[in-house]
């Protein structure tokens, strides 16, 4: 399946901004799930400097500066991505018990294992609370296969938590999400990751997009798609297995991956430092279309 994604981020400031310096993680990944065929940035006002580098996690980072006075910043990214179909059934044929995975990660010394190990620790947005462990253990019964238990955890989050964009913000702590059982995709991903890490498993955060289909008989609205987030768990020998707790599905051909890291902080799509600006209004529009 091939998609064209148009992602526009627009800031309107009350006061002029004299200088802004930014980091964008808006270039889709190329990995075992997908191939990026093209990606182009249009930035207004035009940046005086535009550079690219790969970050610690292998994401492509775009670094740009705008030293010219401006009151509106618009970053528009258009990418084309070929998403590979993966046979779903294969994923659930693994019957390795989760404790075995936990112990293997704890002992492992290979470069791959070290990389996985980093995803077993607390991170900026994911504190390893006792309540997370409690919640996780209801799915992670002794000797249960890792993937089976993870799917169970995902399903419980999907059914027990309510999707509520009005309830949480970027800075809502996990404890609040768990107490009120409300949140958005980002919270659910953080929650699941926290659960897995609290019992010694390696879990990472994936940011990206999901194709949404309009209700039957209606036209799809432009800009109505959104950024999305889900998580992946590490299974030695097989790699990172993805799960989408917001939709209770194993990501397949409708998920497009932008970046991955320990949590949202590592993969923030657009961040920056600016001088001036005062209060600002942010609008984001995302379109995911099949081509």
């Amino acid at each position, binding site marked *: 399946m091939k998609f064209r994604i148009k992602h526009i981020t627009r800031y309107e400031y009350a006061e002029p901004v004299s200088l802004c310096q*930014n980091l964008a993680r808006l270039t889709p990944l190329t990995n075992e799930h997908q191939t990026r065929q093209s990606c182009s940035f249009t930035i207004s006002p035009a940046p005086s400097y535009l550079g690219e580098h790969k970050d*610690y996690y292998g994401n492509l980072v775009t670094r740009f500066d705008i030293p010219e006075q401006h009151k509106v910043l618009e970053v528009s990214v258009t990418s084309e991505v070929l998403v590979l179909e993966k046979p779903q059934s294969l994923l659930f044929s693994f019957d390795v018990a989760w404790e075995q995975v936990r112990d293997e990660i704890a002992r492992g010394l290979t470069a791959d294992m070290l990389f996985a190990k980093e995803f077993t620790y607390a991170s900026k947005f994911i504190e390893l609370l006792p309540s997370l462990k409690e919640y996780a253990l209801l799915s992670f019964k002794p000797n249960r296969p890792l993937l089976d238990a993870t799917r169970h955890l995902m399903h419980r989050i999907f059914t027990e938590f309510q999707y509520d964009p009005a309830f949480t913000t970027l800075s809502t702590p996990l404890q609040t999400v768990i107490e009120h059982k409300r949140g958005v995709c980002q919270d659910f991903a953080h929650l699941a990751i926290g659960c897995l890490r609290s019992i010694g498993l390696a879990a990472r955060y994936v940011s990206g997009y999901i194709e949404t289909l309009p209700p039957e008989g209606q036209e799809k609205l432009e800009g109505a798609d959104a*950024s*999305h987030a889900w998580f992946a768990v590490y299974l030695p020998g097989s790699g990172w297995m993805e799960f989408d707790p917001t939709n209770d599905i194993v990501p397949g051909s409708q998920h497009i991956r932008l970046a991955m890291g320990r949590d949202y902080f590592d993969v923030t799509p657009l*961040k*920056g430092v*600016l001088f001036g600006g005062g209060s600002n209004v942010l609008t984001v529009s995302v379109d995911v279309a099949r081509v």
Partner: protein
Amino acid sequence: MTSKSRPEESLLSRHMEDYHADTKGYDEFWDAETNQPRAHWQNLVQQLEKLPESDFRARQQLIHRQLQEIGVTYSFGKEDKSRRAWELDAIPYVLDQHSWQQLNAGMQQRAKVLNAVFKDLYGRRELLTSGIIPAEVVLNSEQYIRPAHGLYNHIETPLMFYSADITRNPDGQLVVIRDKTQMPTGVGYCLENRVAMSRVMSSEFSSAEIARLSGFFKAWHGTFTAMVPHNRTPNIVMLSAGASDETYFEHAYLAAYLGYNLVLGADLTVREGKVWLKTLDGLEQVDVILRWVDDQACDSLELKEDAVCGVPGLLHAVRQGNVIVINPIGAGILESPGLMSYLPAVCEHLFDEPLLLPQIDTFWCGDKNRRHFVLDNLQNMVIKRADYHAKNQYPASMDDTKLEQLRHKITQQPAKYVGQQFLEFSRAPAWNNAKFQAKPIKIRSFALTEQGSYRVLPGALTRLVYYQQQENPFTGLLKDTWVLGENEENYSSLWQLVGEQAAYRGHEQITSRTAESLFWVGRNIERSESQVRLVRAILSRLTEYSPNREEDALAHIEKLITGLLPHHPQIADALEDMAEKGRSAYWWMMRQFVFGTDLNGGLTATFGFFLNSAFNVRDYWSGDTWRIIDEINQAARRIKYSKPTRSVSDMQELLNELLDSVSAFLGHAAESLSRDGGWLMLEAGRRLERAHQIINLSEILLSNAVDNEMESLVLDSLLYSQESLATHRRRYRVEQRMETVVELLLLNADYPRSLCYQLKRLKQLVAEMPNEQNDSRLERHEKMILSALTRIQLCELSDLVIANKKGERNNLQALLDDVSSDLNDLAEAISQIYFSHTEGAAQLLQGQVQS
């Protein structure tokens, strides 16, 4: 040394009893077996034996005064506990040749090992995959800066500086107790201590073979220069968090010594992946940054978001190879106690050799066996955070409940803790609270990379530790450290170096921030001076009774008081509220003004502004200039801390002292400051302020006409406060009249105290300021000063002195208002054009992912 007529007991003979009171730890000085000082102290002991105690105390005083003069003990505002000054002990710490060789080799090796660890952790991470260091010690530490991974593979010795805290264990063996790898904090104090000691203890110094420090600092500069491959002189800056940082003095001292520009984060900006310094002449590219801010604070774009003392985008400039940051960003991980516990194994693994200098026994609790050892021996341990240095915990001094809580914490999150064997530090003699005492010490040693290996400073910063629990950086008593032995280095004075270094710096770069501070130094020194002069004028008026015209005289005094603080609500209210206006009430007010510390705009506050703006650019001043600034500080402090009830003559005396030191500063600044952009700004600030002061007083005193008898008094006050009585008498040879005074103080183009003269000077200064436009169009600040000067030059004296029927001199008033408004615009324009507008950077709002 002066010989006394009456023999006096020496320091040592009188105080040895005190010394033997502390018997814990290894005694660096006294050998209990032979019952005499150890051999390497003998020379110093002989010197001290010859020294009467009074002489010794005098030297200690001299050291104190020197430190004060160079600004170590600087404090003016509220006594700030965090910046509490330290003292330097006249008794040095002496290190014998054998110990030095051990220290030297051990430091070199340890620096080499840590450099290799640094390269590995930010590169291949073979130490983790081989299991030599448990991955969690590094990967679960906030000190491991992931965005820095992969940045240092191509550099042989990225770890430019290494420092360590060292003591001796009870067996007398040197032991490393802590690694410092982000910045060589203390090396500046070390230098400064040596300079002070070599002055005060010069005879003791020359009688012993003491290793010199100058070679180390020469090598320092050589290493820095060699890092930048191109031919031009590299632009090296020192990045500091500024005057609020407790080690700011050290930054300023070292920057001045090495000839580097001392900058704050806001002085730098990243453009096109390069780092630039904001100077009066525009942006200049920076090659090397010696940073005195923590790893995480270096870059609010990629690292800690709320950090204000770094430079947004810095890490990317490093990534692009456009700037070198020293020590490299990420070096903080090497300081973690967790990592320290694996260092002996790392050294064996990488170099196949044991650590030459033993380290304090350190156990990371994330390892099961080590954890058990720590828990089993808790009473003999100091418990630390594994990843960074925080408050240590001392189980030996805990009650059972606390101990149980600690045990529980360690068991719950073992990887977060490290246990270190409690070590009794060695004792060295110190002159402490007028006693000769044995005190626990820590020695901080410094190493610097030079052509691929490390060079160790043949000296150290020795600190007296009052309680071992104490973690405060540099408070209390410091000691110079004397390394005995043959001196390999040729004689070269520490100060000789300064001249050489200064020559490295092509031309003086004045940062926009320095320019701004100097502008305010100029304004505040002038404001201080005119306030003092006006206060003196008021005091002299207060002492003259005029029985016939008492009411008018009092009205005049009230006007003068208003002149001290124009439009000041506190003064206005106080004057309003005075039930009985009379001399005693005005006396009270003047005392408030001079001695009161809570009056905004009062004398103490004005001097405080001056001193703070001067301290903000501490590195700009030469030693002599700073000494004079410190004299102003001392004079102002004497006023601040004297009783407000002092007599008029006492008050006059204090004010005169203050005025003398202000004059000394201005004279010295005019003589010695190079005529660069900084001087322009200081001078512009001064002239601008003086113009304002003349305008202000003229407005208050002259805009309403009074009868002849009163006018004479008013003009006399005005001339007196402007220090112009004598000039007026000489020039006009008549009793002061309105015409002559206005001519002299406002319109005369050649009299250095006139308004017209200030404007003329300002016009020259503005013309000398760097100008980007090359065409003949005037910039805003040039227009403003031209306008002000022209107004003065075009007006007619006769128009100005005329008053209307109500006695109002409207022409004069209008002229003063117009000039004043031009000058305000001028100040605003200078600020816009030349000063860096250091508004804080904000973070871009981030959207929530909302599906």
